């Protein structure tokens, strides 16, 4: 029951880590967008830690470091990673939906929705079209 939520927590840890190198490569409005995104991920992480602790299940902690899927060397690769991070996070939240119900389902849906909206925001900033996907979080 809680393993899907533990996976969501692991994804949030990874997202927070990734926004470090992403933020370094961005300036102005984009950097601000990265800071907001990182803060949102921290908020989700904290709620998940609380929830999983209350349930008495496994509460995964953050790894010391994460291997990025590709090197972040400039603004373009930073935006690409931000999109990928949000898409991956959305997928993990989506996978947790069937394992939840009621208020917990609502909060998991918020996790999916927020990640999907941020992915769209990043695609817009990167000038990638289409800026939306029909089924956010669904495995390709």
């Amino acid at each position, binding site marked *: 029951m809680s393993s899907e939520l533990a996976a969501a927590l692991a994804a949030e840890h990874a997202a927070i880590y990734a926004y470090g190198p992403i933020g370094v490569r961005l300036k102005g409005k984009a950097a601000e967008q990265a800071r907001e995104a990182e803060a949102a991920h921290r908020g989700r992480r904290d709620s998940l830690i609380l929830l999983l602790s209350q349930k008495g299940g496994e509460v995964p902690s953050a790894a010391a470091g994460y291997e990025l899927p590709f090197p972040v060397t400039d603004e373009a690769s930073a935006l690409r990673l931000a999109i990928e991070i949000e898409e991956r996070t959305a997928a993990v939240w989506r996978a947790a*939906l069937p394992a939840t119900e009621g208020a917990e389902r609502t909060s998991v849906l918020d996790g999916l929705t927020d990640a999907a909206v941020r992915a769209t925001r990043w695609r817009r900033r990167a000038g990638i079209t289409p800026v939306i996907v029909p089924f956010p979080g669904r495995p390709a």
Partner: protein
Amino acid sequence: MNQQNGAPGRSRREVVRAAALLALVGTAGGLPGCGLFEDEPDPPPAPDPLAPLITGALDLAARYEAAAAAVPELAERLRPIAEAHRAHAAELARVTGTTLPTATAAPPVVGDAQDRSGVLRGLREAERAGRNTARQACVEAPPERSALVGSIAAARATHLEVLS
């Protein structure tokens, strides 16, 4: 009164009352063949809980298509959203075993095509209502449908982002 009317009157009332009760049972309980009249049609099957989401998706798609046709400079932004709503309707139809209507209703009124922000505002309102419906449907859905409906709710939120 009952005594004055005599037994035949009372029994007739009882028959009427029993018939009414039976009819109620027939409607609410869906017991086919239990109606008083043999030629009474069976009550229609209860609609799938996701049926309103399908008609909602088709309605939203039609709104975006009409707006894109009326305001060409918005077309590039609106057409992918219309396509997403059509994709949602198709997937929901597949999951619920429903056949999508081939002919759509009359295209919705876009409003004053010169008033670009008014057109966008109308779309935002419809999309926001649709997102709320999908959110509610996701929370109420059985586990095996929750991910699909959740994706649709999230997609509608991303549409609002595109309209902002």
